[in-house]
């Protein structure tokens, strides 16, 4: 286990290095001038050149990459080209909001999606299965931005029950901030519930036809025990991969949902920074996203060993 973990950690280094090159390259080579975005259309070419020089954007690309990478290694992500704030501060402000939203939406999706998928599988081809399949198809088909706007129109504009955007004021009690989570959480959860339940249903259908389930039933075990302890647990192995990917995606910021609800999370930060060609912020935030995905994938791998005792985690040299 320890050697496996060490190997995985060591693998992070080349992966992150490769990611840094890709991120830096793609972000920097994207069309559009951050200086023009910052100082506007009335700035003269001299003013643009002066600002470009001040921001170090007049340096050759490899030099800029080397400087940026060196700073990143020292955990200095630089300053925003647009507002001059530390990138680490901007990310530190945004990430807790995303974490709060991701955990809430993920938990709700899990609590609803897993039983829903299981029920659909158990009642295969029945009315319940048909209903779950139809609803999940709808959940997958509805675009998040449309659903978000509809929820705002219904619950904020028409019924005036919930706030339409933001996260409230910094000093307010935590329970008051919960109301700001409801609509974005529902928006995210709808598609996630659909994804989870579909994967669970499919995995359960595979497992329910297995010999060990037939054996468990033949042994006279009660159906809930067969389903919960034998079928569902085995079905979870492929599902865990999806859960991991979805959770990583949520932690990277639910871009569309955060934008619709003006929810100041990581996705919102990345989108606005891309629009403004704010290179340091985009690069810093994307590096964080890569780290999140790598760590999530590591946790998913480790969880296989728990869920299926047949799975062992070997180092590459161990064969």
């Amino acid at each position: 286990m320890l050697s496996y973990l060490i190997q995985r950690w060591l693998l992070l280094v080349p992966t992150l290095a490769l990611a840094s090159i890709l991120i830096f390259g793609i972000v920097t080579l994207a069309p559009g001038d951050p200086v023009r975005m910052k100082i506007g259309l009335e700035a003269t070419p001299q003013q643009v050149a002066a600002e470009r020089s001040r921001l170090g954007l007049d340096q050759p690309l490899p030099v800029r990459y080397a400087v940026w990478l060196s700073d990143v290694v020292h955990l200095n992500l630089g300053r925003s080209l647009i507002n001059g704030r530390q990138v680490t501060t901007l990310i530190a402000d945004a990430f807790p909001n995303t974490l709060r939203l991701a955990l809430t939406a993920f938990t709700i999706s899990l609590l609803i999606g897993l039983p829903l998928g299981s029920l659909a599988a158990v009642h295969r081809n029945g009315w319940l299965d048909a209903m779950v399949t139809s609803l999940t198809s709808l959940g997958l088909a509805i675009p998040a931005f449309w659903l978000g706007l509809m929820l705002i129109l219904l619950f904020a504009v028409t019924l005036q029950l919930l706030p339409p955007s933001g996260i409230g004021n910094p000093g307010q009690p935590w329970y008051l901030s919960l109301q700001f989570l409801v609509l974005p959480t529902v928006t995210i959860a709808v598609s996630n519930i659909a994804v989870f339940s579909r994967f669970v249903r499919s995995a359960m259908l595979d497992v329910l036809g297995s010999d060990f389930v037939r054996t468990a039933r033949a042994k006279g075990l009660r159906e809930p025990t067969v389903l919960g302890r034998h079928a569902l647990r085995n079905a979870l192995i492929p599902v865990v991969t999806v859960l991991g990917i979805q959770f990583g995606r949520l932690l990277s910021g639910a871009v569309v949902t955060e934008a619709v609800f003006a929810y100041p999370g990581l996705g919102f930060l990345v989108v606005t920074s891309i629009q403004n060609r704010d290179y340091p912020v985009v690069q810093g935030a994307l590096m964080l996203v890569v780290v999140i995905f790598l760590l999530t994938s590591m946790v998913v791998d480790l969880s296989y060993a728990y869920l299926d005792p047949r799975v062992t985690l070997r180092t590459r040299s161990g064969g």
Partner: protein
Amino acid sequence: MPGALSGRISKRRFLRLAVFGAAASALAACSPAAPAATTTVAPAAPPPAATTKPAAIGTPAAATNPAATRQPAAAAAHKGGTFTYAEAGDFNNFNPWNFSAVNFEMYDQVFSRLLWKDGAGKANPDLAESWQLAPDNLSITLKLRSGLQWHDGKAVTAQDFLDCFAYLSDSALAADPSIMKIKGIMGPVKEATAPDPMSLKLGFSAPVPYITDILDYWFLIRIADKSDPQFVNKIPVGTGPFVMAEWTPQQFARFTKFAGYWNKDQPNLDEFVFKRLSQAETLLPNLKSGALDGVLLTSFSDVAQLQADSSYTLDINDNAGSIFNMMVNTTKPPLDKKEVRQALSYSLNRVDLVKTAFFGVAKPITSTFYSPASLGYREDLVMAHAFDLDKARKLLDGAGVQSLDLTFVVTPAWPQMKLWGLIWQQDLAKINVNLKLNEVENAKFYEIGAATDFEGNDLVGWLNGRTTRDPAIFWSTQGNYRASQLNPRGFVNEDLEKLVAAGAVETDADKRKSIYQQLNQLAEDQSHIIAVATNPRIFAYKKAVQGATIDLNGNMFLNSATKSA
């Protein structure tokens, strides 16, 4: 099994760790939003004793009655309340010299000027109670009000303006965009002196008949930290009716009533909260949900439904001076021929475009100086290039152009451009001109607009501002209209340049008017930039909000705004 997972964790331990981890995450996640990003300033100190008695400086030249300043307060103006307002985007700095569109609506609340121009173009006293132009027109002397204070309680004196003027030549600030911008506008002012602590004298090397327009841009600021002239690390200290109290990036900024404001009757509101939403589409639902009291509308399609709803007031400002137009690549034949450019102008059915692409909200114009408020205005020029396909075809024939392929660059940030392009395509096809739309993302759009040859494109949809300003301001700042660094396409018209130079120093009002009207006609005749429609600034307020106005930049002015319960 060498290398296999040696210390496999037990299921019980895994579960324990998982439960602990989830609980810890949930606790962290449910804690209140971190206020770390919020910067605060201490409340303003109590007002100091009255400052030095002002010296007499001659007869006031313009509207000098302090009681008449800004908007007249309603007889029984409702006092107190919080006005919550929102726009799409986020603040990118707080220096009013930056003239950054996303920050416009905070400028007039936090900062003051010596004088300010209202939406009708009238100069009103602000920090200066009077001013006098010297008989030789080579200087202006302004008398400051007594008892003026900064938000931190320090007295405002003429020295503060001298410090402000010194920022323009401070090498430590030379590279800052805000300084560069104001330096361009303040260029004609060569020196600043203080005859006494409450008087300021600005000197010019040549007459500057539009000095009040220049001063309308010169907000009083104090740069305490020269490494932060944008005021993003520490909240700015101003002299306006509201003190900036806190800023949470990507969420909101809060402004509280300034107890030491020179006009003791204003502001009426206790607080102004400026929220930032990322998507313009969510502004209206937020307003209708009751979460906001006012918004800046960017979608003309929303205007009709709000006008039909008695719960809201719409303030449509056509006089803000911003217009939609098209820049023509004059370096690329046959667009180097005036007749071809004019043909394009005549082929635009602006009246129909405004009805469809602009939802009837804007005004069709073929003249840049469409407003009677402009010195260059001429009624006969406003629609001089009215839609006429026959004339357009004849102009093309005259220029020897049988057919033409054009690319027109548009951005999704201004969806009107694409719409007018699509409609225009149909009319152009009738005169054998094939128009291809090139829609690019906003950052790329700006890059193309500033490129020497528009990166090979023929037309770029664009916006220009300050058309209702004194034309000297317009011609000195809107460089894409003339031979300047902002017009790298090389368009040069010597007559235009001569008129611009003459207008900037002409002191005779009638002669100035004549010069700028000639410029208006010349610009329309050259059609190197083709005016299409006005771009009104539209504010939507709940009925409970009254008295919010605008300045000549079209920026919101809250001094006399009230909000009833």
